[in-house]
């Protein structure tokens, strides 16, 4: 993935309000949001960002785009992403929440065929503290450093970052794959990325109940990841079978154990893989420090 500070960013679904809030945040961070797209608003300019009706018009004007951020309403996100793919954009971050999962299935089939990276939906995106903000992470909670954070949440990720920052532990990068049942990128891909990233010394994996990404990650970490990993799982005390706004879909109908997706199942898998587990966010800095001492 191209995460250079000078990479060129497109803002699909830009509005005056979104430009003022998230656009402004990114700009302050030095992220080059070179154009916005919103059909019908073409020709306007929001905070120095020129707006176009079509992605291809934006590209014709500003040249090639490294990453597009999608902020359109949920039912329009598939089309926006397909428009970006059709224009040759290879990195897509979908901030929008509420995308129907079959739209994601449709999109992933296309993305895989065209080797396009999809992060999200329902994701605050990626932040490389001090360098690059691709999405809606609140940069105020982050400082540069050596801890990589990968999670499924947005605000819970800030919570973890805040604890680390207060303890003087900066972050190399934080990414949320998004809380939906069908996500564009996986824990595994990001763990691999962090493992290969020179700036990252320790990885914090932030999971939550639902799905089985954490179980798969635990297994993958034990087998493949060389850097130390600390895990935290939210939802231990949540009643069973609830959605909590995430994980709209449960895959397991038949043929799977009844406890798949519970926080307990995830914690068991992490313990089995001998990964240190934080009981609460405020414990994470201590566990990170211990892990750093060992290396």
């Amino acid at each position: 993935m191209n995460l250079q500070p000078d990479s060129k960013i497109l803002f699909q679904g830009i509005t005056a309000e979104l430009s003022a809030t998230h656009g402004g945040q990114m700009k302050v961070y030095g992220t080059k949001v070179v154009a916005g797209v919103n059909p019908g608003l073409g020709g306007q300019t929001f905070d120095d960002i020129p707006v176009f009706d079509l992605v291809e018009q934006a590209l014709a004007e500003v040249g090639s785009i490294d990453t597009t951020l999608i902020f359109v309403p949920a039912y329009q996100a598939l089309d926006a992403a397909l428009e970006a793919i059709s224009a040759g954009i290879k990195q897509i971050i979908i901030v929008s929440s509420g995308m129907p999962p079959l739209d994601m299935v449709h999109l992933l089939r296309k993305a895989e065929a065209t080797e396009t990276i999809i992060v999200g939906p329902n994701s605050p995106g990626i932040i490389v503290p001090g360098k690059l903000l691709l999405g809606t992470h609140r940069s105020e909670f982050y400082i540069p450093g050596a801890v990589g954070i990968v999670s499924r949440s947005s605000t819970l990720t800030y919570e973890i970052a805040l604890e680390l920052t207060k303890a003087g532990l900066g972050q190399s990068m934080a990414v949320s794959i998004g809380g939906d049942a069908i996500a564009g990128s996986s824990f595994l891909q990001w763990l691999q990325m962090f493992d290969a990233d020179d700036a990252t010394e320790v990885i914090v994996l932030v999971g939550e109940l639902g799905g089985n990404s954490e179980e798969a990650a635990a297994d993958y970490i034990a087998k493949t990841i060389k850097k130390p990993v600390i895990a935290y799982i939210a939802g231990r005390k949540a009643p069973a079978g609830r959605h909590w706004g995430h994980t709209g879909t449960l895959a397991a109908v038949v043929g799977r154990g009844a406890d798949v997706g519970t926080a307990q199942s995830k914690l068991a898998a992490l313990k089995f893989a001998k990964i240190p587990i934080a009981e609460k966010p405020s414990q994470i800095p201590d566990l990170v420090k211990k892990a750093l001492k060992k290396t």
Partner: protein
Amino acid sequence: MDLLEYQAKEWFRETGIPVLPSQRIDKIGDLKGLKIPYPVVIKSQVRTGGRGRAGGVRIVTNTIDAIAAAQTIFHLPILGEVPEVLLAEAKYNADREFYLAVVLDSNTRRPVLLGSPQGGIDVESSEELLQQVVVEREFSPFYARKLSVKMGLKGALIGSVSDVVEKMYRLFWQKDLDLVEINPLGVSATGELMALDGKVTVNSRAIARHADISLMAQKMANRANSQNYFDILGNADLVDRSGNIGILGNGAGLVMATLDLVTDGGGKVKTCLNIGHGSNLDPTKPSFSDRLEQGVELLVRDKNIQVVLVNILGSVLKGVKVAESISKFGEDRMPKTRNAAYPRLIVRFAGSELDSAQAQLAPVAIPLIENLDEAVLQTIRQAKSSPAKKL
């Protein structure tokens, strides 16, 4: 959203999946106008499983028996659910019973076709027979044939079962389903197929883009008198009826983490409300500050809740605006609600304009705490010290 059997079968019929002649029974009197010849099967229309074992399915041979059976079933709760309607259906003599399903799988991130040559109530006890085909690329009937062949079918059954699976997939895709299941699919001695029971789950996020499904959802919501209003604001979850703490947060992960902390600390949470993070991309839905104000009000109104912990972190609203929403609430509405009960508000906030936010909440005596552990501690302390509620 789960459909009832009769609703699922209506969709099956429209799609061309073979179903038996049947009639919906809303009240006992409907059985007098039955157009299906006896013997007839009377089936409780509930969403829970194990209906057959619980006595919710009965075969009757005449009107008198039918009325007796219906009267019993109308009053028989199945895993706590009492049916509002029954289904009267023709009886079918199946030679064999298969299991078929299409389900969305978050693991492969694809729809998966499932099938077993041993359906009915046996399907879970013979899991090793359950075959899977992942629909990797766009669907084409050959995926359905793969399933049929994996199920061990031969000759004409390959084509006829594949045809049913193909129709199930079309329904699944067209209606944005999480699951469509036929269990059992009856197979007659001559190879004729019949969907004898059906289960359909519509993905909740997609409901609004299907006019027909929206209408069904609306009717169900009216009937079930569900937490409709909560659903507009975000996702509300009842944790424990005997709890006395309410949690409101912006983001599912954050709300769950807060719940874990409060529970670990000995607090008892009744309801969690996630009002979501970020701006609203859809102008027809309430804004963040609306969601915040209305959410707090909903929790405070609950007579069982004595402390409400509001955990807002890095919202699109700056601290002053968050405090404004909450202080307005403190000024305007707290006095009235205070008379009824005595809910305390504890606000946890971190982010820009923290100091101004604290200053703004001071006059209405609502504490604003930056540290999460500290906010949780205070919440639990308050909840324990509050006098017992009178209901």
